[in-house]
């Protein structure tokens, strides 16, 4: 299956089950959880269902586009269901069938895998979903986000898009995947993942392992932090402040990929990101108290 077809089917499937289809957030980030649609959406009491694709960057996983399985940037398909429905596992299984996976012929297991993001002050319990020995999704019941208890609890489903495509198509190289087809009067041209991304993988890997200016990144980290706290403290702006926390997180990841962060330094740096993110979460909740949530507004109809 083409990557774009997989995405379209997942979007259709979850839209039909009451999810808003969101968009990726236009800042570098390590996982779809960091998108404000999830980070803030999982907080507070209002119901909230959303699904979206998120390109996710992991500088340390960069392999210059040479490793057939590992990449600097991959696509996650993220679903948040709040509160978590009683049939959430069943819904997830149906979504696999919507991708054309005939589960009467496959082995499917939910193996314990508890998720934690120290830089977001977030953790949850759940599973990695394993299909014929291959991890294809992460399934998490959020217990805390931004250091705050999640009540009600959201279920987070994260599909690894490239992995599922490779697995379904039996590909041995991620760059051979077909993203989709361009159709013109001259004919149909399949476009591969490699055509779209291999050069990008090379340059971004080289950047995070060799070319990134370490002094600049250390300075940036400090500056983003200062800016974030200023926005939050002087203006009470948790969304723009949260963007600074995201930038801090990515800057840290670049430094980390270069081996510029010692094991003793690491927890302290992660805590600085967490402190800002947690403060944003708290400010969001204070602001939202009593304000109508997107789902409520929708029920109320046009105003």
């Amino acid at each position: 299956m083409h990557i774009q077809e997989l995405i379209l089917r997942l979007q259709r499937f979850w839209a039909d089950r009451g999810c808003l289809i969101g968009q990726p957030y236009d800042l570098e980030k390590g996982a779809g959880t960091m998108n404000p649609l999830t980070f803030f959406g999982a907080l507070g009491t209002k119901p909230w269902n959303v699904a979206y694709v998120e390109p996710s960057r992991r500088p340390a996983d960069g392999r210059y586009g040479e490793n057939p399985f590992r990449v600097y940037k991959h696509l996650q398909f993220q679903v948040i269901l709040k509160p978590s429905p009683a049939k959430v596992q069943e819904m997830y299984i149906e979504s696999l069938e919507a991708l054309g996976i005939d589960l009467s012929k496959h082995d499917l297991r939910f193996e314990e895998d508890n998720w934690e993001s120290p830089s977001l002050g977030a953790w949850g319990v759940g599973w990695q979903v394993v299909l014929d020995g291959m991890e294809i999704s992460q399934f998490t019941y959020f217990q805390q986000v931004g250091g705050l208890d999640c009540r009600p609890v959201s279920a987070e489903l994260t599909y690894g898009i490239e992995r599922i495509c490779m697995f379904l198509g039996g590909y041995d190289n991620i760059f051979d995947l077909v993203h989709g087809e361009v159709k013109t009067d001259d004919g149909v041209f399949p476009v591969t993942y490699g055509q779209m991304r291999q050069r990008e993988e090379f340059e971004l890997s080289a950047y995070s392992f060799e070319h990134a200016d370490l002094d600049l990144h250390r300075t940036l980290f400090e500056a983003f932090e200062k800016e974030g706290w200023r926005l939050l403290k002087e203006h009470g702006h948790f969304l723009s402040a949260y963007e600074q926390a995201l930038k801090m997180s990515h800057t840290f990841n670049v430094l980390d990929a270069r081996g510029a962060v010692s094991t003793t330094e690491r927890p302290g740096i992660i805590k600085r990101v967490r402190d800002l993110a947690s403060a944003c979460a708290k400010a969001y909740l204070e602001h939202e108290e009593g304000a109508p949530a997107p789902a409520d507004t929708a029920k109320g109809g046009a105003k």
Partner: protein
Amino acid sequence: MSATQTFLLELHCEEIPARFLAPLTQDLAAKIEGSLATWFASSDSAVWRERAEGFYSPRKLALRFHGIPETQPDQTETQVGPPQRMCVDEAGKATIQGEKFAEKWGVPFSAVRFEQPAGKKEPCAVVTIIRPGRPTVDLLAEALPGLIASLHVPKAMRWGSSDFEFVRPIRNLLCLFGEQVVPITVDGVTATNTTWGHRLYHRQHAAPVTIATPQAYEAALEAAGVVVSVDARRTRIAQQLDQLAAEAGGRVVADAELLDTLAEIVEFPKIVRGDFPASFLELPKEVLVTSLREHQKSFCIEKADGELLPCFLTAANRTDDPAGFVKAGNEWVLKARLYDARFFFAEDRKHPLSDRLEKLQALTFQRDLGSYHAKTGRVVALVKMLATRLSQDEAHVNRALEAARMAKCDLRTLMVGEFPELQGIMGGEYLKHEGAHEDVWMAVKEHYRPVGTEDDIPSTPMGCLLSLCDKLDTVAGCFAVGLIPSGSKDPLALRRAGQGIVHILWERGWALTPTDLIHTALMAVGQKATRTAAETTEALLTFFKDRVAYQLELSGYAGSVRRSALATGWEDLADLKARCEALSAFAEDARFASLAQSAKRIGNILKDEAPAEIFDGSLLAQAEEKALAGHLASLEGTVDQKGLLAALAELAEPLEAFFNAVMVKCEDPALRAARLSLLHRLRQAFLRVADFSLWQ
């Protein structure tokens, strides 16, 4: 006794982490057993434990108890009321208070007796009430929701909008007492006589599985694709593993823990064989076994000579693999993993292992004790000090030093970064590839061993020395900066390291005492210590004494042997071992009981005495004491433990005769002193082996 029924409870949840299944089932069983013991007061919970069967699978926790009475026996209760004088007037008639007491308990006043209960100063009104026993099903219905909510869940979670906490969401409750449903509700889920079968097979069924009677439980579920007994699943897996390995021309590389894991993560076990390209066999065996185990929960297959075959066995949660997808999928994933492992193996070998030595500076061992580079320096110093004591061969000592320098370098390799459990093993492999001396690479490879009390010590003397020095530095270093294990808290696993040191000394019989080792190690720690050497030494001696005591236990010596042997010296392990061996053998001897008795008696007699060391045999008068004194010279002249015990055995009879005939504490002070001295000298000889006063 009323008729009995079988009780069945099943919590059907979303997939419960494997590691919690057995403890949760046991905890639930213990709580129900406790309640049964309370309701049926005549029995303790052991009676009920014998009637309990536990079941679990990834989505189920279940218990079945047979022989549970349908009703409780009638409960007799005695109720005490006001004093007699307030219940009865002078004319002997009931007062208002007396009437009220009778009314309160629903009996006529004529049923009230007057007795003086324990703890009261005067006779009081007393009634005996017989409460009819309640139906067990009612008792269960009342108690179970609370019992379930009180289960000990190490990592509890919430879900949906509820505040209820459990290990994973509860989706169905099956609760039967005989054929009757026990009406309970937990977090909005109400019990029925139905449950769900296998997650995938059962999806074709619109209706859940009905469990008509508790006895029908396993069979009904098996028909729905779930083998609910973990033991049954383990047995089936083991059989399939053996069969498929034999078909492939080899045998399974045994791994009991992995077998348990597989039995816990599937509801219906089907072992599938997959193959991988033979070219991956160029990777070290440990890398393949670890990669397959950690990433794919798969077993390797080895030939009779121990070499691996290019195939693996893994468990699917299915009854079959109709389209071969399970095989193909696992092969695909494994290839990706092995590709990574081969990449690491190739990258790591582009530079000699020794290149990582400097990089160890950036790797913290412990905050106060510094980096792994600093640790390596201390271990090298320790090896130098101890190796020269154990070996005269300079080349050998130099190789030991080389091994110590290289020991931690693999912590900076890609392979160990990916598989931390391959530490040591990879260092050894890489050194072997570089053409290092076999002593060196073997020592590095095995220097983390023994990793637990079950594990063997390193197979070579140099490996043992390196392991001992590494662990000694960890233990002594941590103690010197105040990181001392206490109670159940031992985050750095210092006890395990200490046990490893003792294990090595015990097996090797090296003439190194804990005092020796502590002294040497603290010299290496030097200025990094935050506590005084005296403090640390004292704490470490106590620590090592406990480890030695445990080593004796692990070696299988009886309690009496351990206690009495330890009491007369524990630091010289070779000597301690010889004494324990001799004592254990001697305890079987018919004369032993008499001798131990006499030894105890000597101890008692000498308790408050100060006998002289020099003993004058010429003062002894009776034949029995002269005979006993005659043994003393040979006894004191015997050096080895076995000979000493043999000599002691010979003493059993003369001693018995002595105590029968001789009154030690006689009137004559000189004779009395001589006898006490004789006993004192005998006791000294005894103590060279053991303190018999601690026997039994």
